[in-house]
């Protein structure tokens, strides 16, 4: 690259003033982006990758400041630029796409109008031509029937559509640099592929440069020219996208690569060498911890689901007046979130429940763990139809302690006012047989040890624990009463890959040791492949395909499964 780079960051240091003094979130990093180049910034949470991008457009929050270094953008010094200059640059020269597209859009303004606002603001259109230009912009981001969508509100559009609108907004003024901060996190894989393809195509077309900020190495590899790996505020490695995957230099990059689930790996492969899942080996021995996972022989069915249906009434149709006066006609056909599905889970088996958002997998898991009543169908657990026991009274049922769950968001699923010990003890206090303060404490410590949570941490409140530690508390609580079936609802979706690697191994090891069955609800096929014996693929409330993991993911019969598999961005092998 002989031409001077479009964006040149030198020795950038960003500090945050906190209660415990000043903390450097970004430490003297160098970064450059050439014209037309796509640079991916990869790192785990806390690596400073987002802070770097916020510093570039100077939208750090009040506690943060650029302590040192320079940022030059096509000759303009962004550190010294006035706020007025920055306002003019943002949107016109540099624009950003954020993680949650719905939050980036004004919920009570039509999407077309929002695009118009940006165009008029930056004098790209007059009020007279704005509508036409806005529709044109919607067309460019492949929104079907743009004239109709112009009048849509954000809540009427899917997540993928909203992200397209945000892209249209970001590109409306033909900026030279696009900063995409986790643009597809939270979107389905097929939507992710469509959105990323769109970003790459549009930016190439216009000769734009892109900074792609992501935690997903696969995504970075598939869509960028160069990859910058960040760890704890420092750039540890910068290399071409292909080189970094073929020959990672820095140990952190290697660790990150290793922890990313890929084809042809086993669960243990995810862990860095010499790292044990647990703090201490358990007396029960290392049955499943060594070598490749020895799948236990599959027992009789523990759970049989027959023709399970969940219906929700649709909102009544009609005008606002009709709805207010109660004269609107209720929709005759209720909405079927789960539409007659059937499968079974055998003892000691892990069943993967896979599908994109809205496919009914979460509704299904809520019915199976008896927090939600099915409309029709049977849930046979150990031969008993537990679907017939109403969800309201299930807490008092003897089956309650045999079916437990690990939730998706470890933060949201812990009571902020309970210590880790109190959270783990909760099911024991309600349904367990252990009485007495000392015995309870001992049991909680034992559980903490078995999930690899240091026992000195169990007196802490959730906000004093890290994401991975909170996830362990959630797992300890779920296994506190030795359940037969644990439903894992995307248990690692909120975690970093390296933490995910450890948690997945922990879950697998616990299953072997305690003889539990799992239902693993996930959208991440790479993870499902590693952990599951059999897989059920769902779409629109129905089962598209089910079979063993090797069959379904290795040789898919349904077109939809193939589509899902091909949408996963793969790091080059």
């Amino acid at each position, binding site marked *: 690259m002989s031409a001077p780079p479009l964006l040149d960051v030198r020795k950038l240091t960003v500090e945050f003033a906190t*209660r415990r003094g000043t903390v450097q*979130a970004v430490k003297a990093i160098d970064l450059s982006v050439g014209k037309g180049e796509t640079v991916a910034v990869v790192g785990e949470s806390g690596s400073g990758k987002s802070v770097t991008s916020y510093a570039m457009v100077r939208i750090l929050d009040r506690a943060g400041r650029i302590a040192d270094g320079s940022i030059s953008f096509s000759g303009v010094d962004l550190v010294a630029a006035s706020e007025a200059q920055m306002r003019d640059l943002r949107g016109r020269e540099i624009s950003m796409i954020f993680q949650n597209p719905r939050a980036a859009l004004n919920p009570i303004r039509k999407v077309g109008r929002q695009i118009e606002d940006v165009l008029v603001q930056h004098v790209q259109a007059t009020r007279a031509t704005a509508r036409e230009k806005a529709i044109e912009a919607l067309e460019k981001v492949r929104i079907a029937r743009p004239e109709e969508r112009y009048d849509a509100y954000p809540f009427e559009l899917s997540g993928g559509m909203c992200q397209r609108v945000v892209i249209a907004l970001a590109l409306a003024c033909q900026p030279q640099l696009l900063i995409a901060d986790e643009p597809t996190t939270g979107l389905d894989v097929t939507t992710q592929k469509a959105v990323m393809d769109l970003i790459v195509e549009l930016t190439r077309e216009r000769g734009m440069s892109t900074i792609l900020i992501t935690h997903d190495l696969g995504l970075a590899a598939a869509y960028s020219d160069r990859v910058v790996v960040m760890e704890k505020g420092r750039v540890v490695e910068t290399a071409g996208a292909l080189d970094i995957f073929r020959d990672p230099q820095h140990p952190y990059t290697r660790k990150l690569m290793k922890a990313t689930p890929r084809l042809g790996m086993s669960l243990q492969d995810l862990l860095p060498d010499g790292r044990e899942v647990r703090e201490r080996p358990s007396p029960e021995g290392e049955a499943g911890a060594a070598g490749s996972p020895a799948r236990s022989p599959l027992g009789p069915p523990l759970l049989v689901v027959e023709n399970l249906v969940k219906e929700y009434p649709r909102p009544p149709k009609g005008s606002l007046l009709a709805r207010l006066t109660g004269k609107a006609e209720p929709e005759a056909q209720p909405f079927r979130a789960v539409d007659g599905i059937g499968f079974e889970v055998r003892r000691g088996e892990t069943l993967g429940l896979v599908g994109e958002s809205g496919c009914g997998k979460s509704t299904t898991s809520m019915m199976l763990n008896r927090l939600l009543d099915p409309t029709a169908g049977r849930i046979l657990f150990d031969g008993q139809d537990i679907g017939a026991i109403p969800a*309201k009274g299930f807490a008092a049922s003897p089956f309650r302690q045999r079916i437990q*769950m690990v939730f998706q968001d470890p933060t949201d*699923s812990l009571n*902020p006012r*309970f210590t880790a010990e109190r959270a783990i003890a909760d*099911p024991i206090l309600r*349904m367990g047989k252990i009485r007495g303060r000392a015995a309870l404490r001992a049991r909680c410590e034992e559980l903490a040890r078995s999930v690899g949570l240091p026992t000195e941490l169990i007196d802490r409140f959730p*906000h004093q624990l890290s994401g991975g530690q909170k996830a362990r508390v959630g797992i300890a609580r779920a296994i506190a009463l030795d359940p037969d079936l644990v439903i894992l609802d995307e248990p690692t979706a909120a975690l970093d890959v390296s933490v995910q690697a450890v948690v997945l191994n922990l879950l697998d090891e616990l299953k072997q040791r305690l003889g539990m069955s799992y239902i693993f609800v996930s959208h991440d096929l790479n993870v499902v492949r590693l952990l599951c014996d059999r897989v059920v693929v769902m779409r629109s409330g129905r089962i598209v395909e089910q079979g063993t993991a090797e069959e379904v993911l290795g040789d898919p019969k349904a077109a939809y499964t193939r589509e899902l598999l091909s949408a996963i961005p793969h790091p080059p092998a």
Partner: protein
Amino acid sequence: MNEMSKIEPAPLRFEAPPATSLLAHARHIVAENPVTGFAFALFALIVLAALLGPSLVPYDPLASNTSAALQGPSASHWFGTDQLGRDIFSRVVAATRLDFSIAVTSVALVFVLGGLAGVTAGFFGGWVDTLVGRIADTIMAFPLFVLAMGIVAALGNSVTNIVIATAIINFPLYARVARAEANIRREAGFVQAARLSGNSEWRLLLTQIVPNIMPIMAVQMSLTMGYAILNAAGLSFIGLGVRPPTPEWGIMVAEGASFIVSGEWWVALFPGLALMTAVFCFNLLGDGVRDLVDPQRRN
């Protein structure tokens, strides 16, 4: 996901922050916001006056001395004397106990009743929600001070009835805040998790929901406390509730009002200032209380 979207300095997220003691935490809150420290100091002063005031004051608040009537502020009578020659400083300080206890009792009453009605409505929904909502709507339909006057007039002129009236007019505030806070937490992950742990619905309400809405309720209490004092004094001002010669800020302002035109301003001014200071203090206290009781702020 939300783990990543937050901008926060890196090391804090990797290593979990150490626990802080309540005292150290309080010290930090006060150091961070001096106004909070000021409010807490004022509050301590009010509590002290309420507890010890009557035994500390230089004169008997009820003893009249007609020879020294309507004297302006001086070294022997800091706030002057009233038409019966009673020492206004002693009366203002002694009145703290009555005004403060009316406010505390009524706020405690409405906190329990309104709070419980609200969380029950928000958590269970259905007919409980409708019932609580309608009761709150009915109360809100009246001008609140007029409603309080009506209640005291109907129930009888006593301190107990002032407490009840003040509690009733504050009911909608508490019920609505508690309802809204319980409602948004009803489907939270930790509530679902507790459901899986075999907790009954009532236990969920009491162990999961109620402790988590305490910070908000504490702020609410602090804010309505000032309002409750004002309300009690207002009722006494118009001649309801507390009767003369009992020292009470509202009565004292009412009695002093007639002397302002003739130039004896101190009779009404000092009890009025005491009232204002108390209300001001409780309003300032709200934010400090929230910072103190919220566990999220403890790192």
